[in-house]
Every structure is written in C-alpha cells, then in structure tokens.
C-alpha cells in the first residue's frame, strides 16, 4: 500500500537545516567578496548638478566608485518596464543610477565598492552630491492637480487610466442603475501605504570567472533575473546562472527585477574581476525597494431593499510612486478582485495610476486585493447599516450561488484572461464562519464589536511553471522546479506531491527550487501560484516518470504495465509482492551505458541485460534515464476564497484597539499540507493586522519618509497578534490535475476590512480609512 502523503501535515524537510544555523541566505555567501554600498538621494525630487568623489578617494580599502556617467549604454539605460499594458500610456522606470534627476528619497546615485561594508559606507559618506532641489509631488490628490510634475513629460502625473465597465444582464450601465436604484450611497475610502518588509532585505552577490557569470540574488524569480542580467550585460544566456539561495521572506517585494543592484553588482564584478556582494540594510530597504497599498477610492452604490447591489461605481486614485517597473498590476487587481464572492447588477471601475515623488509601488502580498476588498466590504456594511439589516444577510443576498460555477464576472483579470471563477461555495463558507465566531450569539456591548469580511482571490496565474523529476540508480528522486522559495515549504510540499505520485518514501525525494542550473524556465513565486503551478507541473512530470518506470518494469517482470503499481519505491504486480523490481533497478535499466563504473552501472552496460540485437539500445522516441519534465500551463487562474470575522474591544478612555478573537474560514481547494496552509494563513492575518492597526509609510510634504525604521514602522510583535481560529472548506479546482488553489496571500486580504467592520460596530463611528491608530480613533470620537 502506498503511503499517501498528499494532504498530510508532513513536518517540514527544510527545518533541521534552518533550525541549526545551516541556512544559507544571501549575506551568508561570498565571505571573500568586496562590498558594495550606495549613495542615495536625500531629496524627493532634485536635479543632480555635480558629484564630487574627491574626499572618498582617500578611504582605505576603496576599490571603485561609479556614477551613471560611468555606465556603458546598455547598463545605464532605464530598467525594463516588466509588464506593459495599453492603458499604461506613460510608463516610466528608473536608471540603475540616477541620470540627471532623482525622483524619490533613496534613489541610488553613486555606487561604491570597497573591501568591506564599513569602508564602503565611509566612502559614501564622503561623496558630495550637489543637488538642485525641485518641487516634490506627494500625495495622489496633489499629484493629479498636475501643478508640479514627477516626470517632465507625464502631464498631470497620470501614468495610466483605465475604465472597465460591466453592464447588467439587461445591458444597463452602472451609473444608470445607481441613479434609478431604490437606495444609493456615496462615500470616500482611504488606504495608506505600507510595505512587505521581509526580515531579510534584498541582496546580490556576483562572481565572474572570465567567461561565466554566477549571480546569487535574494529574489522571487531567478530565471527572469538571469534573462534580465544577460540582456543588460550583453552575455549569452547560457553563460549566466542565477541562484536564489535561502530567502528570508519576500511577500512580493522581491518579485520586482532587475533591481538596479541586480544589474550593477554583476556588471562591476565583471569589470573589476572580483567577487562583489551587496546586502541591503534596513534603512535602504525602507527607501529604495518598493511599497504598496496607498489608494483613495470614491464609491457610489445603488441597491434594493434586500441590500442587493444593482450598480457599483468605483473611482480609484492609485499612488504608484516614482516609477512603474511592474506596470499597473496592482490597480488592475484591485479593480477586478473588488467584486469578491458577489454578483452585482452592473459595475463600473475607473482608476488613475499616479506618479508621486515617493518609493515605487509594486505588489505586496495581496497585491491590490486588500484595497479592493476594503472597498467592497465597507460597501456591504454601509448598505446593511442603511437598511438596518444584519451585515451577513446583506452579503448572503449578493453571493454567487454554488450552482452558478463557473461564474463569469465578465472582466479581464490581471493575466489578461477572462475573470471566471472556477469553483466555490460561499453560502457554506459564511455558515461555517458564523458558527466559528458565534456571530448569531454575539452580545453587543459598548466598546465591543464584531466584524466580517469576504474575499475571492485569483491564484495560480499562468503562464506556466515546469518540473523535472529524475530517479537515479540509487533510488533517489530529484525534483527541480524553476520558481523560488521564501519560506513556503516547497521542499516539503513538492516532495509530498512527488512521493505520492511516484509511490516512494518522502525521505528519498529532494527538491531544488530557484536555481537556473537545474531548471531554466520559470516565471516566479508570487500571486499565490507556486503550489498550483509548480505543484501540478511536478505531478505531471512524475506521471511521465511513473509511466516510463512501469513500462521498463513491465519488460523486466514480463507483466502488463496496467497490472503494476509502485509502493515504497518498488514496482510490483498488484496482488503479487514477489514479482517486484525496485525503482533503483528500473533507473539502472533505463540507461544502457557503455561504461561499468560501479556495480549498479555494470548491470546496465550495453552488453548486459536482454536487449535485442535487432533494436537500437535506446528505442526511437525514447531517452536514456528515468526522468521526466513537464509543464503546467493553465487556461486561466483558479479562484480561492475566504471569510474572516473578528471581535474587537476598544478602550473607552485611551482608545486602544484590541482584537480579542479572530476567525478564518478558508477554501484553497485540496490541501497538500494543512499544517503549511494554516501557517500561511496565520502569517497573512498577522500582516493584515499590521496593515490595519500598526503599519504605514508616512511621507511628509517634502517627500521624506519620516518613519523609515523598525522603531517607527510598527511591525507587530507576538504581543500584538490575536490567536487565530481557522476552519477549512475544500472545493477542488476543476482546472488543474491536483484540484488545488493558492493560499499564500489569502490571510492578509480582508483583515483591514474585517477590523474596520468590528471597530465600526464597537464604536458606532464609520471607519473609512485604514490603518487606524488609537490616536485616530480618539480624533474620530470627537
């Protein structure tokens, strides 16, 4: 009998290494490498008049100083705009080092290489940059006035404007339906900036041996970094390898690529002929990586007496900071995922993506969904409040029903494919959640409130991922996939999939991710896609290997492949355990070698065995070895869903806000490893609580980020995070062989909406802006 590992809470296979200090993160590598550091702009907007490096030249251990002027043309050109979109009419990206103008505090201006980081920072401190300050543009509402421009050639600071309209079944538009609805509400919502802030910052380490370049990067996509580096440095792709070592968290910020440093560090390593490493420090991470979340939303909704939404019109000002390297994915996700588990009469959404002199905005866990869900769930609560209805009843009145899947929202999703939900059961999910939190028995009391929030998350976006599986003659199974890992437990879950598919003990399976030496084609780890994409690709690759193993074993056992199964790494005839051949032997048989370098190989040399003299040793269409490679490329995304509820208490005197209970019901299809899924949910909710109550990026009118440290950017500690109660619902996805949906981002998505809902219930004050601090709640109380 095969041990079924799929679906089991298997202990993580990466842990023993990480628990004993044997992890290898970026800065743990390259002990002899020279260190890079950067002079970064102290101004939000300025012209660079002159750079004087004279004083820095005396620093002991200085190796090199580079400004934009020193860069060859293909290195110095603007970084790629990774995801163009027709609506992004004015996409702009930064140069690796500032050319003439800096557009946010933290933009790199000068690169220094020195013997170690201390000395590199000494040199940076001695470099004098003469800036001519320009008027900074801060805040989207000021930006769209267009009084001052972030980019001289972008009128009104508007990078993109996109209108999407979904008329009603009768062909009526949202505005028309709102105007004629029995009830209408209009309001404004604000969501402030936050950021992913993984505990390990970014980092790049490069070495050049005269012909080949090896780059290690703390990235969420090594394959794409490889292509970007090869293109920028003019190297053949085959001479560049990129490896993501252990990565200390990503949460979206490390999917952006190539970062300036990912081009500059390898370039300098080649030029100087020595290993160079740059390890981002915490201050750099705040001002020179990426932020997210900041949006202003103007909402108009029309609804009937039951709370059914007849028309919804949302206008979004999206702050995308100084540059748009990742296109307009975030506002597109907000506009589409705003719909949640609901079917609306008609929907119109318009966003303007606006430049400001602040750090660029790219996806952070949730990637626009928290804002969209905040909008929709605030809308639901306001409808309920207006009608005097239970908030869950209004939601239920708008749910897509279980018999309506696949459900076409008639929009275009972030992957350019139709927004069609594949499966789900929202009424049941709400029932489970209400039971878990005790919604119907909740006793209203002053300064105690309950809140709810629902979301649907498109996960597992394409275009593809691949998997390679090889069984070697020692019986070991080697799995590789191109996407990277940042703590998701891929070495465990992919091994679970391979062990289950192949019928081998998990101890024999090893998994490599994010190493272009092992797998060159991949997209990356983001959008809750790794398990769906690589999980299915690995399963498909395993099925190929299994089929071949059964074919070879059938020959050896003189049996029909259909009568064979693999258990504990042994192929045997069903019902006859004596007619068996281990996979290790099958691997030997799969490879007709000439040279007998060891005992196993001796069994497979072309002179051994029963190969027919009338046939070539490797049959036409066959390959030596017991291995398989396959890709999974979905027709469209699969849609996970979840509903959260919270009980919040507010202090009547100090206005402190405490989340006393937090409940989650989550549906990500079939679970590969429930322990890991639950861990993802916990972490997501914690980030959500941070985003709702603690974390924000605060810019002053001069464009200075005034809280750029962990002292003032308040990432929650254990003392700030509530206990999280979870329930699972498993509605398999019909779109992929394993029936799975993504889970990585889920936890974070509805938290601001849920906590706002609960505070509103506790206080009787409408909460239209998140995050909220005790000071702000005090102000709202008036």
């Amino acid at each position, binding site marked *: 009998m095969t041990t079924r590992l799929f679906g089991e809470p298997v202990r993580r296979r990466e842990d023993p290494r990480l628990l004993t200090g044997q992890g290898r993160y970026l800065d743990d590598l390259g002990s002899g490498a020279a260190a890079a550091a950067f002079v970064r702009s102290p101004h939000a907007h300025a012209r660079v008049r002159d750079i004087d490096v004279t004083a820095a030249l005396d620093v002991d251990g200085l190796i090199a100083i580079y400004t934009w002027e020193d860069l060859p043309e293909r290195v110095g050109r603007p970084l790629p705009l990774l995801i163009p979109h027709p609506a992004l009419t004015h996409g702009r990206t930064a140069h690796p080092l500032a050319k003439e103008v800096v557009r946010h505090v933290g933009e790199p201006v000068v690169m220094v290489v020195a013997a170690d980081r*201390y000395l590199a920072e000494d040199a940076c401190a001695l470099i004098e940059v003469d800036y001519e300050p320009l008027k900074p543009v801060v805040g989207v509402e000021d930006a769209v006035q267009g009084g001052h421009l972030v980019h001289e050639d972008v009128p009104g600071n508007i990078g993109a404007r996109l209108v999407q309209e979904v008329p009603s079944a009768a062909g009526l538009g949202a505005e028309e339906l709102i105007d004629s609805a029995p009830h209408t509400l209009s309001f404004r919502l604000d969501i402030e900036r936050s950021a992913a802030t993984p505990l390990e910052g970014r980092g790049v380490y490069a070495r050049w041996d005269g012909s080949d370049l090896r780059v290690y990067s703390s990235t969420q996509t090594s394959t794409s970094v490889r292509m970007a580096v090869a293109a920028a440095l003019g190297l053949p792709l085959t001479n560049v390898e990129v490896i993501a070592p252990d990565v200390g*968290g990503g949460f979206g910020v490390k999917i952006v690529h190539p970062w300036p440093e990912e081009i500059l560090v390898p370039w300098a390593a080649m030029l100087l002929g020595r290993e160079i490493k740059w390890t981002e420090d915490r201050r750099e991470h705040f001002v020179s990586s990426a932020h997210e979340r900041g949006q202003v939303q103007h909402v108009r909704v029309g609804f009937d007496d039951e709370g059914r939404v007849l028309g919804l019109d949302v206008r979004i000002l999206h702050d995308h900071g100084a540059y748009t390297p990742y296109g307009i994915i975030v506002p597109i996700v907000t506009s589409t995922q705003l719909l949640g588990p609901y079917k609306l009469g008609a929907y119109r959404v318009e966003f303007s993506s606006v430049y400001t002199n602040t750090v660029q905005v790219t996806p952070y866990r949730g990637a626009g969904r928290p804002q969209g869900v905040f909008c929709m769930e605030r809308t639901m609560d306001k409808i309920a409040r207006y009608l005097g209805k239970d908030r869950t009843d209004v939601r239920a009145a708008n749910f897509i029903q279980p018999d309506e899947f696949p459900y076409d929202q008639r929009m275009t999703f972030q992957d350019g494919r139709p927004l069609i939900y594949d499966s789900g059961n929202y009424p049941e999910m709400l029932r489970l959640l209400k039971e878990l939190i005790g919604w119907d028995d909740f006793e209203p009391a002053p300064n105690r409130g309950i809140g709810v929030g629902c979301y649907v998350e498109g996960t597992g976006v394409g275009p593809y991922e691949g998997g390679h599986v090889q069984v070697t003659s020692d019986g070991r199974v080697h799995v590789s996939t191109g996407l990277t890992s940042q703590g998701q437990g891929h070495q465990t879950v992919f091994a679970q999939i391979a062990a289950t598919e192949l019928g081998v003990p998990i101890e024999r399976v090893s998994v490599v991710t994010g190493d272009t030496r092992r797998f060159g084609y991949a997209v990356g780890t983001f959008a809750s896609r790794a398990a769906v994409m690589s999980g299915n690709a690995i399963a498909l690759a395993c099925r190929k290997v299994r089929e071949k193993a059964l074919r070879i074993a059938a020959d050896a056992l003189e049996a029909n492949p259909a009568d064979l199964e693999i258990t504990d790494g042994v192929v045997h005839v069903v019902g006859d355990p004596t007619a068996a051949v281990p996979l290790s032997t099958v691997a030997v048989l799969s490879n007709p070698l000439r040279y007998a370098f060891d005992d196993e190989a001796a069994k497979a040399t072309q002179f051994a065995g029963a190969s027919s003299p009338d046939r070539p040793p490797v049959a036409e269409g066959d390959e030596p070895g017991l291995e398989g490679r396959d890709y999974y490329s979905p027709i469209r995304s699969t849609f996970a869903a979840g509903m959260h509820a919270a009980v919040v208490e507010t202090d009547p005197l100090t206005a402190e806000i405490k989340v006393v209970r937090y409940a989650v019901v989550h549906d990500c299809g079939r679970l590969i490893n429930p322990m890991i899924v639950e861990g993802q949910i916990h972490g997501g909710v914690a980030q959500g609580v941070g985003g709702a109550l603690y974390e924000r990026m605060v810019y002053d009118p001069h464009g200075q980020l005034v809280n750029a440290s962990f002292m003032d950017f308040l990432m929650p*500690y254990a003392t700030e995070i509530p206990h999280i109660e979870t329930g699972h619902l498993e509605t398999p996805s019909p779109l992929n062989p394993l029936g799975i949906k993504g889970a990585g981002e889920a936890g974070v998505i509805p938290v601001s909406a849920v906590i706002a809902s609960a505070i509103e219930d506790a206080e009787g004050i409408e909460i239209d802006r998140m995050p909220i601090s005790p000071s702000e709640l005090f102000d709202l109380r008036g």
Partner: protein
Amino acid sequence: MSREHEITLTVNGAAHRVRVPGRRLLSDCLRHDLGLTGTHVGCEHGVCGCCTVLLDGRPVRSCLMLAATADGHEITTVEGLAGPDGMSPVQRAFADCHALQCGFCTPGFLCTVTALLEENPEPTDEEVLEGISGNLCRCTGYQNIVKAVRRAAELKAEES
C-alpha cells in the same frame, strides 16, 4: 583609521582570537570573521531580534554590541544550541509546531526561547508572550511560535 583590537571570544565552547576594528559589531564579527552565519541581521538597530545570541547565557542583540566589548565573554549562537544527541528541545519543538517559515528570524527566537526556558522552565502564557515580545517574525503570525515555546517546555520537562 582606527586601531585594531585583539580580542578573545569563546563561541559555542571554542575560543577564538580575532583582530577587529573598535567599531566592528559583534554580529558582523560572528558572521564574517568567525563564519558563523546562523546569526542573522535584520535591522541593525535592535528592534527585530534576528541577531539575538546568548552572552554568558543571557540573550542580547549582537547588532547592538561591539565585538570588542564582548572580549573575554562566552557566546552561544544558534550553531551551538544542538547537543551531541542532536537538536535541542527548543529546536525540535519549533520543527514539531511549524514555528518557522523562511527561517530568517528563527535563530534569534531560538536563542531567546532557550534562555527563557532556562530561567523559567514553566512559563505562563503571559510570560511566554513577554519572553518573545522583542523578536519580530514576518512569516508565522507567532501563533505556532507560542505553541512551540510551550512544547519545548514540555520536552525539556520530559527529558530532565
């Protein structure tokens, strides 16, 4: 250029003589001079706790200490937590309870919790929270870390 100082650090039981500039942080000395990269650096201003090591048995931030100040002291890093029989109860409890994801903050938590349970083998829930309240984790939401501390206390009690 400032002088270098010859110091002796006893790390995980082994004495190391090393020359460092006065400004060298203990975290950098452990990681880059002694090659003990298990101690991680997450903020270099004392807030995240990733760099926590044990100084004479008590947890301290190695990014908020000069290597020269540690001259003559005993230091335990994550590399020194496991015993001859394998991982310590705290390490095993973290694995049992899925108390780590990316693993970057983990060495700091392990050192903190090891010291916490040495001093207080049966901490209350509140003491557990207080004990780990100076360490940031961005992945786990802490719930399983709290669980692991309780589990570690159980394992230690069973094995003592």
